[in-house]
């Protein structure tokens, strides 16, 4: 009875029914850096599975890059606050219902354990056995926090009243996790190529290709779901659609084409590998920026909200 065709839902002078947060590129960059750091920390853990020297090369880079991204994401998050000098109030309470709250603790834990793995690695590289043990011990919690960092931002966006972000909570986090592993693997693969470890680079490319394909599949799936839930029109507004298309092309199309080309030619090409990596990384940011901007637009469209809040089919 309450179902209604979207265009038949009344609005109040087409004014937005929701307020729009002030979030800008800094939030996109934070979500990107958090995912990349989480992804590299996960892969650092997998280094254990490889023959010692090769595995260590991946773990080493993974640990350093994770720490670096934690060091980049924390200031981004603080810089985005409207009263940044009070950033430490985030640590005043712990609130399980708020991904912004538990995310702050995820970031803190991730930063602390990444620092430990990186410190252990750094001393191990200078011959300390103790350092190696510290790095491997801290790797366990760092990996768990890394997994959280790779995708909790999906919960952050979907635990809102925003029509677009709230329409597909599971898919949103899954997309972010897949993209986090893709960008992490691409970054490490780039590092291995540049340091001449081609076999490692190719291994990481395999993971990047897998994660990028998963991410592509999940993106297409969520587009369908958005359409079914009637919130897709925000993503179809011209500028947002352009961002989304560019993100698909740069983040998924180009790298997958590069991998396919290298496969077909039967030879490894450093150039193709580097292009694929850089493209995956750039696309990872663009994907998140399109998600963020699409959501901001969606909150200004009252019918999208009214449709998902009671007038749609589900």
């Amino acid at each position, binding site marked *: 009875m309450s179902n209604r065709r979207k265009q038949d839902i009344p609005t109040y002078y087409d004014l937005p029914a*929701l307020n729009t947060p002030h979030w800008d590129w800094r939030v996109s960059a934070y979500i990107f850096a958090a995912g990349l750091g989480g992804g590299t920390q996960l892969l650092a853990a997998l280094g254990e599975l490889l023959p010692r020297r090769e595995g260590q090369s991946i773990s080493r880079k993974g640990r350093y890059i994770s720490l670096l991204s934690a060091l980049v994401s924390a200031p981004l998050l603080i810089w985005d606050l409207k009263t940044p000098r009070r950033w430490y109030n985030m640590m*005043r309470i712990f609130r399980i219902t708020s991904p912004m709250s538990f995310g702050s603790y995820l970031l803190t834990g991730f930063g602390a354990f990444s620092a430990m793995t990186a410190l252990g690695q750094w001393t191990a590289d200078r011959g300390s056995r103790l350092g190696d043990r510290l790095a491997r011990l801290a790797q366990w919690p760092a990996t768990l926090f890394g997994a959280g960092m790779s995708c909790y931002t999906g919960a952050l966006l979907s635990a809102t009243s925003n029509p677009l972000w709230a329409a597909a909570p*599971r898919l949103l986090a899954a997309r972010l996790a897949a993209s986090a592993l893709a960008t992490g693997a691409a970054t490490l693969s780039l590092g291995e190529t540049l340091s001449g470890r081609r076999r490692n680079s190719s291994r990481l490319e395999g993971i990047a290709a897998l994660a990028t394909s998963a991410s592509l599949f999940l993106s297409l799936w969520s587009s369908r779901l958005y359409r079914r839930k009637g919130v897709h029109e925000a993503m179809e507004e011209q500028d947002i659609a352009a961002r989304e298309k560019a993100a698909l092309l740069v983040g998924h199309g180009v790298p997958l084409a590069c991998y396919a080309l290298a496969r077909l030619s039967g030879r490894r090409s450093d150039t193709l590998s580097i292009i694929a990596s850089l493209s995956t990384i750039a696309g990872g940011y663009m994907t998140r920026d399109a998600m963020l901007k699409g959501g901001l637009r969606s909150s200004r469209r009252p019918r999208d909200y009214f449709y998902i*809040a009671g007038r749609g089919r589900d």
Partner: protein
Amino acid sequence: MTNHPRAQGESRSILAGPFDAEAETTAGVRIEPGKNYGFFTDTTLCIGCKACEVACKEWNALPSEEGKLSGHSYDNTGGLGAHTWRHVAFVEKSGPEGVRAPEQQPYQSSWLMMSDVCKHCSPAPCLEACPTGALFRTEFDTVVVQQDICNGCGYCVPACPFGVIDVSADDGKAHKCTLCYDRLRAGQEPACAKACPTDSIQFGEVEELEQRASDRVDGLHRQGVENAYLYGARGSPGATGGLERLNAFFLLTDDPEVYNLPLRPSRPASRAAPSLAAGLATAAGLMAAAAFLFTRGHDHE
């Protein structure tokens, strides 16, 4: 402070001082910590005078809006925000093709006015989203932002299902209706309810207001206003999807969307766990696949 010339000779109040429990006189309510207070806004009584908007601005010393004419009937405010905690909506309905229908329904059904406000939801999505504890539930079961704690992360803004709370560009903190927390503590009725000349805004204990409101709906139904219903009271539209009730609720006579309200809002926090779980599962699945790729790689060597 010196008195205005016209007030010379009138400088002393005839009252001995402030009332102890003023709300008992003005609203018939004794305000005590531990009880639940809220608003019942009966839109069939609203005459669109905006006394509530003005009283709210004055009492809370909120910055004024930029003076612009919106062209949306008599509503030049637009909506609730950091500096607007009461907002009167105006809906002019005409007959087909913009021509006024010759037969009008009773009780303002062709000109709707509604004074919107923070719903002081239970549970409150803004509060559940707040990472600093700046937003808290008071001893009067209302939801208030502590200005000395908010750091302007803005997460409460998309959390609110009703477009109420917003971060002010002036001071970088989130603001919204406090249900006149300061007045309640002084035993006074909130400014908007006290200023409302028609009792369209009624302040009181939520349970009692809900009773009064359902009686009012029955009365209106008997008088032929069949489309009257409650929005936000327990079990009615607005109190849906994990929002048990809105402490500030409404009597409406048209679809909620006409007043810029969603039919079935939901509690955003309930989406966090499924989202996180799906993300972690995806990461775990891809990790397993990656581990397979890694080990396969060196078994072949």
